[in-house]
Structure formats: structure tokens, C-alpha cells
């Protein structure tokens, strides 16, 4: 029996099973952002690891087949971008300006605010890629010397919060154009925001997915420039 607990099959099965159960629950609650299955699957799995005395490294190795798919999934984001090429051409200037402004705002505000709280460099590096889709955020965080699992949870909370505040915030700002609304939700709240935008309208959802995919590249490029010159983020912000 203890041998079974160590086999990849056990943790793969448990991970998919717990996720599927919360996914079914999330469907029943009309996909409310607070019912996002990852939000509930992670604490349950942590509880199971603690209860069985399984070290995280063993769990991570056992579930490698699931995590491995992240890479090809990111590569595949090229498909929706390519499908939206006519629209990208038509809206090129708003897309480029809004994307650049949004990506810069996200990095500077997240790192700046966290630095005000006196957080160490490893946390600043974990929050810098906050606006990108989770796998890209994890890759960027580890490159910058951050903590990938923390980056994953930050991105997740940003998505849940962004999906919930999008409609009231954008109404309050008086932004009525569905393309501006959708794109902003995708740039700031990635996949979870995009899922919410699709519930509002397919048009807004398409722009949100586009914003998410383009911001993965833009934030990666901006952070790479910072890293490439070996200038640490907090030096630029001069805190």
C-alpha cells in the first residue's frame, strides 16, 4: 500500500479526480470566479500531502505528465492570435498602445507596491510577471530568481479578482466599447478574466484572449530587457 502512494499513477489519479470534482462544482455555480477549481484543488491536495506525509518533490515528480503539457499549451496560444490577424491589423494602433501601457503599468505597480511593504527580491521577482498567463509567469519568475509556485498563486488570485471587478470598474470608468473592455480584461486578468469576458459576449471574449496571448509576449519581452541588462527591478524603481 505504501508502494502505491509513491507511484506516479496514484497522485496523477488523485489530482485529476479532485480537480474534476471542483470543476463540476464550479459549473454548477455558473463558473463564478470564486469557484475556480484550482483555488480549491490546491488546498485539498496540500492537505492530502500533509496527511500522507508525502514530500512535495515526490508529488511534483509523480505529476510531471500534467505539468509537462504547459509548454505546448503556451506555444499553442499562437493559434488564436493567428486567427485574429485581420482584427489585429485593423486595430493595430490601439492594441499596441494599450498593450504597452498595460504591461508597463502591471509590472511597475505590482513590484512598486510590494517593494513599499519591504518584501525581498525573490517576492518582487515572483509578482513582476503577475499579468501573464500562469505558465509564462512561472517561467519568468524562476528566470528572475522568484518562486514559481508563488507566481502561480499570485496570477490565479489576480485572475479571480480581475474577473470579479471588471464590470463595475469599467462601468465606473465609462469605458463602453466592448473591444476596449475585453482587451483590458485579458491584459490584466489573463485566462480567468477571458473566461468571464466570454460569458459577457463572444466579441469581448475574443479580444480578451488576444490580450492575454499578446501580453504573455509583451511582459516577457519587457522583463527580459530588464533582466538582460542585469538591472534589478527595484533599482529602476529606486526604493
Amino acid at each position, binding site marked *: 500500500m505504501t508502494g502505491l502512494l509513491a507511484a506516479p499513477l496514484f497522485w496523477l489519479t488523485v489530482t485529476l479526480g479532485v480537480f474534476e470534482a471542483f470543476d463540476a462544482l464550479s459549473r454548477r455555480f455558473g463558473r463564478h470566479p470564486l469557484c475556480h477549481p484550482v483555488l480549491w484543488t490546491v488546498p485539498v491536495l496540500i492537505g492530502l500531502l500533509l496527511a500522507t506525509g508525502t514530500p512535495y518533490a515526490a508529488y*511534483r515528480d509523480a505529476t510531471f505528465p500534467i505539468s509537462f503539457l504547459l509548454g505546448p499549451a503556451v506555444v*499553442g496560444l499562437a493559434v488564436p492570435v493567428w486567427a485574429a490577424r485581420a482584427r489585429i491589423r485593423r486595430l493595430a494602433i490601439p492594441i499596441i498602445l*494599450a498593450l504597452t501601457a498595460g504591461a508597463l503599468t*502591471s509590472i511597475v505597480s505590482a513590484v512598486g507596491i*510590494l517593494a513599499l511593504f519591504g518584501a525581498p527580491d525573490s517576492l518582487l521577482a515572483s509578482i513582476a510577471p503577475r499579468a501573464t498567463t500562469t505558465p509564462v509567469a512561472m517561467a519568468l519568475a524562476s528566470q528572475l530568481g522568484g518562486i514559481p509556485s508563488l507566481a502561480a498563486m499570485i496570477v490565479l488570485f489576480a485572475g479571480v479578482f480581475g474577473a470579479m471587478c471588471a464590470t463595475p470598474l469599467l462601468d465606473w470608468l465609462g469605458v463602453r466599447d466592448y473591444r476596449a473592455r475585453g482587451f483590458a480584461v485579458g491584459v*490584466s486578468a489573463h485566462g480567468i478574466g477571458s473566461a468571464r469576458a466570454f460569458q459577457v459576449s463572444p466579441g469581448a471574449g475574443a479580444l480578451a484572449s488576444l490580450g492575454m496571448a499578446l501580453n*504573455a509576449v509583451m511582459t516577457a519581452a519587457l522583463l527580459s530587457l530588464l533582466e538582460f541588462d542585469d538591472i534589478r527591478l527595484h533599482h529602476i524603481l529606486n526604493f
Partner: protein
Amino acid sequence: MLRAIFLLLACQLAGEAIHRLTGLALPGAVLGMILLLGWLALIPRERPALTAVTGWLTAHLAVMFVPAAVGLINEGDVLVTDGIGLAAATVCSTMLTMAVTALVFGWALKRFVPGGGEDAA
């Protein structure tokens, strides 16, 4: 189908190779995404299969980052000492980013796109 899967892996592999050989700091998967975009623009043959495979992958993206997120099990100290700062920075940054992106997009739409670029969707 198998060719589409091969293409995704090949683009990622090429992206990782470029990342390591050139010291370019973009992650391998992001470089792979740019390579796949080039492939889609130049070669039409695998488009339907790629759309099907990547549609499936994207639909199940959430479960794929569960194993990484469970790694929080080792970060309890960080959440205790810096949890409030992390929450404040995440909430404020998300709202600011959304507001700036929406306002700039809306402004640029009026300023630079004649007729508002209306489309079918």
C-alpha cells in the same frame, strides 16, 4: 493530429534551443509561440489539426498548473510574513492595469481608427 502535436513540441524545442544558445531571455515556450505564429502564416496545411489540438490544451490549462501551485506547501513562511503586501500589490496592480489598458485602448480607438474599425463580432 500527431503532426500537430509534433509541431507544438518542435516549436517549443526550437524555442528552448534559441533561448539557451543566444542567451535571449524570453522563455523557450514564448519563443516557440512566436515560431508557431510564423509557421501558421507561411504553411496552411496543419491549421485545422493545430486548431483542434491547441483548443483542447487551452481548455484544460487550469489543471496543468495545479502541480506547480501545490508547491506553495513549502512557502508557508512567505505567506505569513508578506501575505498582506502580496495581496495589496496583486489587487491594486490588477485594477490599475485594467483601467490603464481600457482607457488607452478607448482613446486610441477614437484618435487613430477612422470609423471605429467596426467588425462583425
